[in-house]
């Protein structure tokens, strides 16, 4: 540090006040609550992925094991839970797809693809993939 020319000079150190962050900071605004809920739904996404893996594994364990799983899946409590799960997955998907035009800038030559096209493209891809999966399941059934 440079030596002060004036020997009597005393450097000023302000006495700051720093506000403590409250534990419920995320209740301050609707957008924070929505953000936290979106993050929380990641757990539901993980559960859905895990359930899919379990289903695939059970299929390899034979018909009896698969029947037991189907029996468990058809229980009213499990069905109710999975309806809630579906709602959270839809919320997660929709909120993320709505954010994509902000993150993704596409160019075709010198033309910048408009945000609405990026947004619509993601929804179209989601719809097409969902239809393909439904057709596969219907075909198998």
């Amino acid at each position: 540090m440079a030596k002060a020319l004036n020997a009597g000079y005393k450097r000023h150190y302000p006495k700051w006040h720093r506000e403590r962050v409250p534990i419920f900071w995320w209740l301050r605004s609707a957008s924070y609550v929505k953000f936290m809920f979106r993050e929380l739904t990641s757990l539901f996404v993980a559960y859905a992925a895990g359930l899919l893996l379990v289903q695939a594994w059970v299929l390899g364990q034979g018909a009896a094991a698969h029947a037991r799983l189907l029996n468990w899946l058809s229980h009213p409590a499990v069905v109710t839970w999975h309806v809630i799960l579906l709602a959270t997955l839809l919320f997660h998907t929709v909120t993320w797809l709505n954010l994509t035009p902000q993150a993704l800038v596409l160019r075709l030559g010198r033309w910048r693809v408009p945000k609405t096209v990026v947004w619509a493209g993601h929804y179209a891809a989601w719809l097409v993939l969902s239809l393909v999966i439904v057709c596969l399941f219907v075909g198998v059934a």
Partner: protein
Amino acid sequence: MKSVAVEVLRYRPETEAEPSFDVFDVPYEDNWMILDAINHIKDQVDGTLSYRWACRMGVCGSCGMMVNGKPVLTCATYVEDVLPGPVRVEPLRGFPVVRDLVTDIQDFMVKLQRVKPWIIREEEKPLAEGEYLQTPEELEDYKQYSMCINCMLCYAACPIYELDPEFIGPAAIALAQRYNLDSRDQGREERMDVLSQHDGMWGCTFVGDCSVVCPKKVDPAGAIQRYKLDATVDWFQSVLMPWRKR
């Protein structure tokens, strides 16, 4: 003349350990901004009130404050728009308060400098060769990010910065992106070294409020996500095509 109650956060470190609120009854006219009300308090009621302001036209970025819990430029926010009172005015959230409505912005200044917000050239071409020309499309690439006025409203809206002050923050990353996207710049790698660290772009969880409060529609949240995407593509390229230099 109409009047409104204005609650102003006061912090006088030489006499008070904690801040408190002073309430002022402020007469106002239809076209008054919040800054006019604060200036009225300073000029007519209590000259010791401390705060920053300069241009009164939404350009200097000095008069950012929390009004009813939201970060705004007080020179660009009508009193009429925050009625019925009381109107609560506080310093920008996330920054240490020096006095009343004045925050210490040194942290932002240091972070801003770290991302090197200027044009970096590996080699300058001779003056005789003329200017670095740009097409309108090349200008359009970064123009939005160049609108940043360093008002720090985005930092006050960012819960990540408040929870982890090490986070380099929205405006600094948006300004880094502004220069990365400039066709004249060659400093992308240098900035990536800074922003790919633990306190850089990956700290952002995309709350998105920084873009909502930005008075210049810079969209720092978008800039950060674009940066993340670029970094991811860079990483894949370095693994899959190590011979290719971007």
